[in-house]
């Protein structure tokens, strides 16, 4: 159940899932997160490491544009 902090910090610093602001935010939050939360964050970021970004980017961009539109019109 213990989390490898070094690896998790590396994941937060390099994950393509996160914006730069979010990256800084998570590094700061990590200092006060408990073990369970750190584990959850690690699991999410590990899954993101397996994303094939070449295929993902067009899909994600399209979905994002649509979502932005929905939010704007709501």
């Amino acid at each position: 159940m213990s989390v490898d902090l070094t690896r998790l910090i590396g994941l937060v610093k390099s994950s393509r899932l996160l914006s730069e602001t979010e990256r800084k935010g998570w590094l700061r939050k990590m200092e006060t997160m408990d073990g369970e939360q750190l584990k959850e964050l690690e699991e999410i970021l590990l899954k993101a490491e397996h994303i094939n970004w070449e295929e993902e980017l067009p899909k994600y961009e399209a979905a994002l544009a649509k979502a932005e539109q929905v939010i704007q019109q709501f």
Partner: protein
Amino acid sequence: MAELNTPPEPQTPPESHEAFIQRTRNDLDALKAEMEKVAKESKDIEPDSGDTAMKQRAKELADRAEALHRKFDEKIEQLRVRFPSQESLLKATDSLQTQIDSIFSNTQAGPLRSALNKLNTKITDKNETGTTGMTLSERVEAVKAALPEKPLPQSSAPSGEATPEGDAEGSPKNWKNRISEGFQSFVGMLKDFKEMLQGFGTEMLMMLSSFAKMIGWNDVAQWLETLASNDASELANALAKSGVSMKQLKKPSKGDDLEKFKQQMSTYLQEKGKLEAPQTALANRYQELATSTKRGTAYKRNEFYKDVVDKWKAENPTAKECGAAELERMAVIAMDKTKVPDRTAEGPKNLPTPTPEKPGEVLAVVLPPQGTNMMESQKVKVNNTEITFKMLSDGLEIEGVRKYKYVPRSPTALEKIALDVQKVKPEKINISLLEAKRVNDGIAVKSKAEAQTEDGKPWKLESEQPVVIVSKEAEQILLAVQRGDGTIPIKNDKGEVVMNLLHT
């Protein structure tokens, strides 16, 4: 005769102030090192250096996703205003959430970002219950700053007594002020109550509690310990027991707003400082009065109170009133300080004699050290067993086959017992067992002694606190109580029943 006591186990000597402070500092250092580890590792690690166009694009998308999330939150907030009822609000937000989820359903990053947002919300919600705005490292530093760098002088004992004052670095006053400031800033830090109770927060509370004990703030220590146990009802009980009954403190009951209570506690800590001066003045006043009036130890407690209170009030017309309990405590301290060896040497001739003839009359107020024999032992025989009554300064000891000690609530009650015992007809004594339970070193027994005085009046004495009995028969008594036996025979060394404990 049965063996009464097992030899006492060797006790470790109490930790010195110097050792305590050193240990506390070491603990805090270790905690801080743990917290700094995360920060250090985050500096040492560099993200992937290969920066491709695709990576850049992913970053941009992540920025847009973050902005989208913020926008989503704003919309939800707008919905809260637009939909007054919870039902309609949930319907609207669910609808929006469903649309967004549906849009991202064919992506891999969408659900993961959604999971990240949920985790973020969970953490944010927790922090919003009362964020301190400080990281754990900062908190450790703040508390560490309150610790003295040099050991406290041994003379500044935690007795609440007046200490030599001075402003020089390292003087008792200086230490006390620094510690006091540290505590007050700590109380301010306690906004995030729930978080402080998790993980090392509890340890810190316990450490601070030990620290509070060291400087004599026993009520604060008890409060901190209870705070660490996270139970509002216990908190209220602890306050009640510690005598923290300042008017500005309202005891919380279960479910009450602890935040409000903590603010009150903070106020209390500040007020406590203001009250120290009159308390010391009270202690000094007694010494002065006892000496100047030459009434010595025959100076009655109620007279003393009246004199002290009247004079103290006259001298402190604008000061906060010193509560009765506090007055009592200070008076006892003051009296202990007053050493007048002979109660008759200096007193006027018309003062009560040490052994009053009228039952119930109050004896002199000065109490000798605990355990001192207050009168000649009374020996009686019950069923061939000799029972000795000893009136000690802190209770009544009855020793027959085994030893009992009754500790009354106040010295006045003790004095009353002393008089009563002299009148008791020993052959009529019945000792009943009220309660017995197993404790670490034997059994704790609550019992009752009933007798008749020489003039035929009933006399009863109940132990207010359990007495621990360590003997070969402890187990036997406990088993008998558990079985519900009405009578528990107590035998002497020859195996003869010398007394029956009646289980009532």
